[in-house]
């Protein structure tokens, strides 16, 4: 979706303000949100792409106003409700409904040693060889899907060169909507800064973007 989350190349967002000696979490509640995200993900009711999409769907004005962990909290609430793990009534009352199921055992502290910091593995075996080769010139397709995609707007229509092939990976555009993993070859494509941004960009500079086969065409 052409959301405000797709920020590459936007102007007006202000200066970057690094913080010296930044703590991992600024407030205890941020840590709780982080832990809730990881622990509920282990219940297997959604995937990382659906998680990202739940955050992208936060209304733009809210997205820009909220802190990172506020966005995570909003996305988590959406996922809990959409997956059916928690009902709207339960979210509003803060109490479990009578007869509410406890269908899935929670991730316990004992199981965490194996689950953390593992992030999951997204490479999948496929039968088809890669359609593009290293060194080949490719174009990022002009597409404007209303659902989840990882093809940033600033690269659409641009021509680049395949720099490496990462193997076949789960395709976010289908996975985010629970329409299957549709694994396909994933390429690192080098775009010159001038191709993306015009003649004012530095001649030697470039941007490398990981792009799935469905995002690319020969050029």
């Amino acid at each position, binding site marked *: 979706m052409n959301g405000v989350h797709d920020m590459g190349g936007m102007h007006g967002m202000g200066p*970057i303000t690094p913080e010296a000696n930044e703590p991992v979490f600024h407030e205890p*509640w941020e840590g709780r949100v982080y832990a809730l995200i990881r622990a509920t993900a282990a219940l297997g009711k959604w995937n*990382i792409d659906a998680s990202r999409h739940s955050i992208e769907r936060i209304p733009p004005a809210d997205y820009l106003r909220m802190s990172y962990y506020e966005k995570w909290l909003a996305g988590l609430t959406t996922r809990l409700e959409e997956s059916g793990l928690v009902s709207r009534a339960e979210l509003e009352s803060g109490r479990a409904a009578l007869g509410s199921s406890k269908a899935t055992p929670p991730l*316990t502290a004992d199981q965490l040693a194996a689950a953390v910091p593992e992030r999951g593995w997204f490479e999948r075996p496929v039968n088809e060889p890669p359609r593009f080769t290293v060194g080949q010139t490719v174009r990022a397709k002009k597409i404007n899907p209303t659902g989840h995609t990882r093809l940033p707007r600033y690269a659409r229509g641009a021509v680049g060169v395949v720099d490496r092939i990462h193997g076949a990976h789960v395709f976010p555009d289908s996975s985010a909507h629970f329409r299957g993993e549709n694994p396909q070859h*994933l390429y690192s494509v080098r775009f010159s800064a001038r191709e993306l941004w015009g003649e004012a960009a530095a001649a030697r500079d470039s941007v490398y973007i990981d792009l799935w086969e469905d995002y690319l065409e020969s050029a």
Partner: protein
Amino acid sequence: MDHDHDHQEVPPDPALRVMALESLLVEKGLVDPAALDALIDTYEHKVGPRNGARVVARAWLDPEYKKRLLANGGAAISELGYASQGREHLVVLENTPERHNLVVCTLCSCYPWAVLGLPPVWYKSAPYRSRAVIDPRGVLREFGLEIPEEVEIRVWDSTSEVRYLVLPKRPDGTEDMTEDELAALVTRDAMIGAAKVTLAGGPT
């Protein structure tokens, strides 16, 4: 409703909403509070940029390790215990006198947790995500890094589950240093590409 407490006059802040959500999920048997505590402890105390600094220092000292790291980052960091069975899609990018690498995630906040822990606020912020790809030289200038025109800048937009770690240049004057001493010089920002490693080192 007891209106004597003024904090009840404002909408619930995130801390209260999170507390309510956690208590609901615990009541429903969906999460185990002890597991939440363990997760927080892991990222506050065990996984962080010290991991990445150890990887960098090893690569500076051991040319064979550096080769393996550049060829297969996930397998190489698992040698040091940072991703079991090499199951981390990690690409390591070497900074050289001719080339400077900078990592960003324009679409969200993808970051190499296994070696750097959780990202700093600036990395997740709109200013960095919007500008790193279109104006990397301006961004680096704000970090105090002036990259000469003849040096190529490569920006890596983390759009997939592949994660990127910058292998910074080893500073001059460190020839006699041990791995521990070298690791102490390597900052988080240097492994994102937003800083150089200097003899001054740094807190992160």
